[in-house]
């Protein structure tokens, strides 16, 4: 009986046709634009030719991935409307970054291709190499669950989740598609795919939200959360540790820092700023994109809430599937709730379009991340270690090989990882391995003249303390600390190490002046 609930969906033959044809079109675009790729600048930065509108589309396309939709809906499934504070803060912080140009304006002025390249110009080569390794390690670990979670959406919405073979089969199919596509066209094909995805996904998301409200009723959604979650379902300052519900002030600070990281420090986001036409375009791009940075959380949160209300309103076997009343019965993963909900309310045809859009979101996030980490390893680790003797063609070839290697890792990690952290927290913890150190280096490197290479090097190493937030690591060490606390403590630690290291071991040839001179030349 449970199996029949999992297979209940409006997904029909026409939807399958849409879902299969859409990636083929993307593949065609990848093949078409591969002829424009002649050097590393084209491959990594799309020739530094992104206008404002295309910049907004590609930023949204990258950051509004299927993984974001899935972990956000999971977060709101448990947290209710109180999760909206994360979306609101993300929008406000990105708007501030856009208006002020915080971090990004100066980085774009310096015309660097990657953040570790900035580390070398501001500090030294060894900081660049270590920075590249830390960034790639944190980033690759961070994207370890993308494939699995994305595939869970596909099998959930199509009604395939009753079959045990479906998840690994979809994972293998999707990663193969993404690898071929990314290797072919680099950033140019990524940017165009992001644009197409933006168009399909933005209108699709608005339509799906409208149908969710129409189906469940605007008042019913709010009333149900009042009844089922109480005040903690709305007020983010409330945290009831004994029940494991709510957020609290510490979490709000963590969300604010996360908002800053996701737009101004996270490499895939920064790479869009570095690919912009000019520093002024960067500011415009991020000011406009602040709406996307809010919406990418807000609408999936709302869908997660609607999925929760739908399950509780329906009751019976559906409720039993996610909240079993019998002790010892394993609950279905809450990640399946939102796709099952959409599969039941969206009409045939529309459901195919939404799935295709989500598939596009999946592809655009994957290709951006694969391109980002492979180019960081090539440009900032392998090339400097080889004394910069690599030709542009060799660099592109190495990047392509690394894309495939990372893709294989993502498939393996997705099949093997058994952690119990909410996906949102897993992402934050693994990301912190990179961004805790990067925050200190960028902030001090760009805005503090006395920042030294020794301080930078030790701050990067201190950033690895964030790995303590992962639950397999905590289980091994027999400790239990909330991921948000570990992340904030890591950021504080790296900043202290950066400042102390710079004061104790100042550089003989401080490069702060060189950065300033470079900026003023542009």
């Amino acid at each position, binding site marked *: 009986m449970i199996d029949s609930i999992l297979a209940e969906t409006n997904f029909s033959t026409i939807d399958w046709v849409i879902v299969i044809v859409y990636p083929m079109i993307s593949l065609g675009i990848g093949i078409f*634009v591969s002829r*424009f790729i*002649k*050097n*590393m*600048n*084209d491959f990594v930065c*799309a*020739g530094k*030719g*992104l*206008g*404002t*509108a*295309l*910049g*907004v*589309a590609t930023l*949204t396309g990258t950051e509004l991935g299927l993984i974001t939709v899935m972990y956000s809906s999971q977060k709101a499934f448990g947290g209710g*409307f*109180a999760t*909206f504070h994360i*979306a*609101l803060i993300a*929008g406000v912080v990105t708007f501030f970054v856009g208006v002020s140009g915080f971090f990004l304006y100066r980085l774009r002025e310096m*015309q660097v*291709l990657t953040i570790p390249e900035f580390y070398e110009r501001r500090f030294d080569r060894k900081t660049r190499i270590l920075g590249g390794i830390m960034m790639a390690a944190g980033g690759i670990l961070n994207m370890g669950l993308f494939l699995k979670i994305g595939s869970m959406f596909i099998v959930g919405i199509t009604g395939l989740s009753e079959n045990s073979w479906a998840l690994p089969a979809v994972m293998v199919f999707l990663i193969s598609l993404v690898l071929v596509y990314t290797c072919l066209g680099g950033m*140019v094909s990524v*940017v*165009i795919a992001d*644009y197409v995805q*933006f*168009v399909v996904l*933005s*209108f699709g998301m*608005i339509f799906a*939200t409208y149908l969710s409200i129409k189906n469940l009723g605007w008042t019913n959604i*709010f009333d149900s959360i*009042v009844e089922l979650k109480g*005040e903690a379902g*709305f*007020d*983010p300052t409330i945290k009831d540790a004994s029940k494991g519900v709510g957020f609290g002030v510490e979490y709000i600070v963590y969300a604010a820092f996360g908002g800053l990281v996701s737009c101004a420090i996270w490499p895939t986001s920064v790479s869009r700023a570095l690919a912009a036409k000019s520093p002024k375009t960067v500011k415009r791009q991020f000011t*406009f994109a602040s*709406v*996307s940075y*809010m*919406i990418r959380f*807000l*609408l999936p949160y*709302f869908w997660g809430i609607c999925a929760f209300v739908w399950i509780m309103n329906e009751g019976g076997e559906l409720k039993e599937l996610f909240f079993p009343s019998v002790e010892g019965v394993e609950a279905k993963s809450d990640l399946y709730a939102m796709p099952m909900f959409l599969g039941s309310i969206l009409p045939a045809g529309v459901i195919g379009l939404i799935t295709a859009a989500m598939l596009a979101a999946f592809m655009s996030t994957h290709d951006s991340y694969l391109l980002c980490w492979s180019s960081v390893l090539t*440009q900032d680790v392998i090339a400097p270690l080889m*004394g*910069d*003797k690599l*030709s*542009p063609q060799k*660099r592109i070839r190495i990047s392509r090989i690394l894309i495939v290697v990372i893709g294989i890792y993502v498939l393996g990690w997705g099949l093997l990882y058994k952690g119990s952290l909410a996906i949102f927290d897993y992402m934050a913890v693994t990301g912190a391995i990179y961004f805790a150190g990067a925050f200190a280096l960028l902030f001090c490197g760009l805005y503090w003249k006395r920042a030294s290479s020794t301080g930078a090097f030790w701050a990067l190493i201190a950033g690895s303390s964030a790995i303590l937030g992962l639950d397999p690591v905590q289980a091994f060490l027999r400790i239990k600390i909330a991921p948000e606390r570990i992340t904030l403590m890591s950021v504080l630690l790296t900043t202290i190490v950066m400042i102390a290291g710079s004061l104790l071991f100042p550089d003989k040839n401080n490069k702060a002046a060189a950065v300033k001179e470079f900026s003023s030349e542009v």
Partner: protein
Amino acid sequence: MEAWMLLWKIVLIAGMVLFGCMAVWVTIWGAFDVKKMLQSINSEHESGATSPDEMEEAINN
């Protein structure tokens, strides 16, 4: 709780309206930007302009 509920209702509606307007704008102007980007990459290749890493390589050699 009422105040929070009202805030989240406003955030959701305002967010959707803003996003809808932005989606229309990006859809139209983004298409022009794609065309310009491809033209600019093409013309750079035709004029033989070098990228920063090619210049770096030339310096190293």
